[in-house]
């Protein structure tokens, strides 16, 4: 069985796709494009697909990952193109590498997020970020399946900084995915924050950091923040950057050639 790791996106209005919705759409795309899937054994065989660490419904992402098992060996790039064509625009397959290494999920150590805060002055966001980072711990609450949970949102944050205005829009702001209607964000201020969070238990989501910013620094965006995951992978603690989790597989594939 050949295993292939894929990177995919949730862009524009399709960021409202839940993970379950994505799974169904992806498995149908596999059927439409007649990918020679390997199936699990048992009474009701399922195609071999494993998903890693899905972004919450409503947040866009440039860096989601999954792995599929094939019954017949395929060229990863040809497979990527074939699957990408079969999925609706917005759910795009952007990378495909043959799995040559183990512990892939463990390599997803951290996520880099972009937080657009329409209606928030950049200076105000910058001050709030400084207050948040200066705190030892920032207690936040979130409703979970097991009730209201209180936990620290500060410890997992490896970086939080203001990006200059006009930073290239990815994910949500992609005009081609919003009926071509363009953007209503004209004139009003908009702060853009870059956030790096370590994957830990309990998971700290961008929403948790936003509620931390509200509780520690009174940062209350007038409209919902637009959140995009830019990357997930190994964390370089020195620079606070997230690197490519497929790099090892890529290198191994080069050597194997």
């Amino acid at each position, binding site marked *: 069985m050949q295993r292939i790791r894929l990177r995919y996106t949730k862009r524009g*209005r399709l960021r*409202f796709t839940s993970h379950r919705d994505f799974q169904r759409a992806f498995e149908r795309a596999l059927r439409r494009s007649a990918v020679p899937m390997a199936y699990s054994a048992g009474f009701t065989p399922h195609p071999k697909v494993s998903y890693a660490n899905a972004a919450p419904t*409503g947040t866009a992402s440039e860096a989601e990952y999954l792995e599929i098992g094939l019954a017949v060996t395929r060229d990863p790039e040809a497979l990527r193109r074939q699957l990408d064509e079969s999925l609706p625009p917005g759910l795009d397959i952007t990378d495909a590498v043959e799995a040559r290494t183990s512990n892939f999920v463990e390599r997803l150590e951290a996520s880099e997020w972009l937080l657009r805060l329409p209606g928030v002055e950049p200076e105000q966001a910058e001050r709030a970020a400084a207050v948040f980072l200066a705190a030892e711990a920032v207690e936040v609450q979130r409703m979970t399946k097991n009730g209201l949970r209180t936990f620290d949102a500060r410890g997992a944050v490896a970086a939080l900084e203001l990006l200059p205005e006009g930073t290239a829009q990815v994910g949500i702001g992609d005009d081609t995915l*919003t009926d071509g*209607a363009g*953007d209503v964000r004209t004139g009003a201020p908009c702060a853009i924050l870059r956030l790096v969070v370590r994957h830990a238990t309990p998971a700290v989501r961008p929403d948790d950091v936003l509620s931390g910013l509200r509780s520690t620094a009174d940062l209350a965006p007038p409209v919902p923040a637009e959140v995009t995951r830019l990357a997930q992978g190994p964390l370089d603690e020195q620079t606070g950057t997230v690197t490519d989790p497929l790099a090892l597989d890529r290198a191994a594939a080069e050597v194997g050639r």
Partner: protein
Amino acid sequence: MTVESVFPRLEALLPHVQKPIQYVGGELNSTVKDWDACDVRWALMYPDAYEVGLPNQGTMILYEVLNEREGVLAERSYSVWPDLEALMRERGVPQFTVDAHRPIKAFDVFGLSFSTELGYTNMLTALDLAGIPLNAADRTMDDPVVLAGGHAAFNPEPIADFIDAAVIGDGEQAVLDITDIVRAWKAEGRPGGRDELLLRLAKTGGVYIPRFYDVEYLPDGRIGRVVPNRPGVPWRVSKHTVMDLDEWPYPKQPLVPLAETVHERMSVEIFRGCTRGCRFCQAGMITRPVRERSITGIGEMVERGLKATGFEEVGLLSLSSADHSEIADVTKGLADRYAEDKIGLSLPSTRVDAFNIDLANELSRNGRRSGLTFAPEGGSERIRKVINKMVSEEDLINTVATAYGNGWRQVKLYFMCGLPTETDEDVLQIGEMAKNVIAKGREVTGTNDIRCTVSIGGFVPKPHTPFQWAPQLSAEATDERLTKLRDSIRGDRKFGKNIGFRYHDGKPGIVEGLLSRGDRRLGAVIRAVYEGGGRFDGWREHFSYDRWMAAAEKGLTGTGVDVDWYTTRERTYEEVLPWDHLDSGLDKDWLWEDWQDALEEVEVEDCRWTPCFDCGVCPQMDTHIQVGPTGKKLLPLTVVNN
């Protein structure tokens, strides 16, 4: 004039609502056409939640038929849940289409498909959100023509105040004909305004325009007569019938949603119409004559549809799918063709006889044999004669014996309660039948682990059926009868634990009955329910019987009639029924004779295999039933190289 998308405004609301994906569109195989390049624009709405509306075949077919036409555009809309409705009202976001998020008010025609009467309040919500006046009389040139279709449109009188027009029967050709009329009127510069357009539609004889008819009432509250109130408007409006289904292989590119919906499968309608003659069944009566899709036509639609969607299941739809003249070849052919692809087949409507078990075996060839469903509809032999469901208890027991012998372990039986002439005894027989089924199952399999689920719905008399004159059983009497049945089942020591019992209380059925056989006087009631917060009446958690009864009391004041008058009252031969001027093709005298036969427990055969009974449909349409066999086989397709 380009119409702006409301999406940017809607998008800001979506993080605050449940399942936002249902509002964003972008489904596989959906279509967004250039607004300015089209001169006739339809908004098609299924007035229920997206998860129910998206898989609706009627809407999907018309969407594709219209969009295939040059210069014509169709977009879809569904009911928004109350959480989003509240936000839309707060922020002034109008009812929108999910395709390009255009406001409904900007379209030429706003077509709504009513499978049931319980969608009426949702129509009012949508009109109000769209900024379209609720009363048709208040609309101007800026508003679309509000057009009702679907089975409930066979009696559109309760919503006559709110709709501009109704079409009964098959929509495929009808929407194209209406498009041509709208196009010509627009091209001429809209002469005579809305009135002229509606008059042109009315003159075709195939579009009902309620405002062109006056209803006169007798002193006792019954209808005196319904009269056209201007020249050129026909006394009766006829239904539309598409004769050759192979000419209309829709949907060709079924929509594949991202959100989860109630039917996640590729559906192919294998025939339309039914002549079994079950007297309670409105669908069977109003969709006559029988028209089969050919075996090769079915094969092509399945193949093309699976390629276009990636679905894992194929549903072969019709009112009684095992009745297709070549059903054995169809199911075997499809099971053979897709044996390697892990494609499941389903045949949702079933008939009780041994042939069916062979089919079921074929359909479940690669899967598990868990449950089979049959619909005897009536518990006693006598009541089954009344409703013309020609199944003997012996047939049923033989069928389940075969099923159990073939490895099936669970049988589900559907029944109705409240049928005409029904007594407690008829309903208690349902329990006896379930016990006999289990006893037979134990005997055949040698195990006690056999289950039988009994599922019971309340009977609602419907227009254009032989039971259109029948009294409906009151909610209290229905509940009382079902309680007796439940107690007799639960109290049985030998079988009670193996019988599952599912039923609905009688109250929603009374509201459905009120609307089904209602007339124009109910407009005030529907409006009052809507204004009192009524939404999603088909959903148990949103439905309020008390709200409907309070609205009826208020809305019917001064009319001399009440809810009982509409529901539990038996009608006489002479009475003018509210839908008499809508011609379903059925001869009213034939329906009356069949009603008399029902009361005398006389059965009527299926005219596909016996001589004609003069129901009136074929001569009226100058046609006859269209059945096979064609003798053709569903040849295996050549394997496509990857």
